[in-house]
């Protein structure tokens, strides 16, 4: 299998979804529990792939470095954000390369981003709370031409759900359910 992706099955799935759009709907869920200080534990909820639920038994922890009042017990939320962004771009890039018949040898994406915490702290008047810019570089070796890889880069970012979520406004709908405990 090219790049260990079955392009025949990928093509069949794309055409199945064209006929049965319900098969394209993925329901995701995640539960995050506060453990201690800045450390939290994330656990995937069962997912729905089309009309069928599937088990997702994965957990991980996030924490802040000691300098930010944490214990450095895991990647921090910004790193996890970049990880989710980059691994989604990777799926898109590899799937696109496979569909174009390009054999990949290595792919690496380097991310750098600077956050000004004055926004988080409420200190800065002009600084944004979130990342103002995310920089990345894709290092790829394979049998594609420079032009093919450039085109693949453009298309894979424009079809990456996480890249598009970050690049475009997203509606966040939240509420809080609180219980006051008598002390």
């Amino acid at each position, binding site marked *: *299998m*090219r790049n260990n*992706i*079955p*392009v*025949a*099955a*990928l*093509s*069949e799935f*794309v*055409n*199945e979804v*064209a006929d049965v759009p319900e098969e394209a709907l993925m329901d995701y869920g995640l539960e995050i529990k506060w453990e201690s200080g800045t450390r939290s534990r994330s656990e995937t*909820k*069962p997912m*729905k792939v089309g*009309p*069928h*639920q*599937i*088990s*997702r*038994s*994965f957990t991980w922890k996030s924490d802040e470095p000691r300098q930010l009042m944490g214990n450095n017990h895991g990647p921090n939320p910004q790193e996890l954000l970049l990880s989710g962004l980059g691994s989604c771009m990777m799926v898109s890039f590899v*799937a*696109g390369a496979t*569909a*174009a*018949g390009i054999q990949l040898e290595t792919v690496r994406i380097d991310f750098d981003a600077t956050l000004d915490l004055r926004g988080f702290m409420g200190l800065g008047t002009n600084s944004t709370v979130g990342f103002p810019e995310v920089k990345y570089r894709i290092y790829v070796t394979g049998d594609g031409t420079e032009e093919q890889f450039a085109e693949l880069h453009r*298309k894979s970012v424009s*079809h990456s759900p996480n890249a598009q979520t970050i690049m475009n406004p997203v509606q966040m709908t939240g509420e809080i359910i609180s219980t006051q405990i008598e002390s």
Partner: protein
Amino acid sequence: MSNKNILGDPSSIAPDYLNDGWLNELGRTRGAGPFLANHPAPGRGMSTTCVHAGTHDDPRTGAVGTPIYQASTFVLNDNQYQSVEDGFARDRFIYSRYGNPSQWAVQEKLAALEGAESAIVFSSGMAAITSTVMALVDKGAHVVASSDLYGGTFNLFNQEFPTFGMSCTMVDSYDFDAIEAAIQPNTQLMYFEAITNPLLKVIDIPRLVEIAKRRNVRLVVDATFAPPVAMRTLEHGVDVVVHSASKYLNGHSDLIAGVAAGPRKLIDMIWPRLLNYGGSLDPHACFLLERGLKTLDVRMRAHEESATALAKFLETHPRVKKVFYPFLESHPDYDTAKRLLKNGMGNITFVIEGGDKAALRLVDALRIPKQATSLGGVESLISLPFNTSQATFTTRQRADIGIDPGCVRLSVGIEDADDLIADFDRAFATIYSSKEPAHA
């Protein structure tokens, strides 16, 4: 040396790579198969399908019937290498663990009989069951299954599942509320048997389908006791049907095999488990299975005829306390059987006076039925749950699942009903005329 022709399913062609555009421009669609050739259905009748579907006369010599392709490996060409690279290797001949023309022929026949897009034969029913279940579950998955499963399947869920970090809740297959209540957010699969062993409960498959679809869970049904002549399980909406083909499908008690059939999408997911777990069926066994299937329809009618006559005889015999045969009006699932089954089967379970000791004397006194486990052969087979299928249970445990002392498991073959009735009549007379007490 290589052969330039397409060696496999000619309707399956390599996907075109994108020159421009994105994934939406990929052209290859999923089709039924893989099949040796695209030929029209020979007829709509079950017996015509049994005889002709999937069977391929030898194109070189004209020899009638599918040749036995007793080969482990195949001469490769560029097209086969490409099939591996592009992920359609199931549609080409490469190596017999992946696929072999003898397997394909019998798979096509089985798919036609079940009304399935695709089927895979395995080296046993348990290989089919394990590969199917493991293809449809993920890390941390949960399965809801029947509480009176076949022992081998019970062992898969009870012994292997916890090792993989997966779990199974077993529920009374009559209790639909309990089945639904057992479904958890991580439940991926409901696993049931169409007709249970040994009490021959006929499960209301349409109700299971309704629950599975509403709760977004896959449903796999083991229809070993209800082969396609009796019920086309997939037509009720079941996702995948599995069989021990060693039983009715082959019908001659001379091979061990299994099959999984269903939509191409799901069978393609099961195929990598066939490769990983290695339960491929030998070409010679495929030939035997294909030949056995040709008479499935006439055999099932003969099983029903002899079993119905014998069941009625047993029901009237003064030494027989209970008879379980789904086509007897006394069977608790008679209405369900009439609704779901187009044909009966040879399995009869009955309880005789005198407990297990009398049952042992009965199986010894009979001349026609062989004292052996298994079922679905042309010859009648007889065994006792207490020392075979439920031997690890205590008397009370057996009673809890409805197996009383004196319970006998009979698979009626295709012998003449008059001969079977005469044999049982004589055997009963022999064992109850002895001086041993009738009540153990």
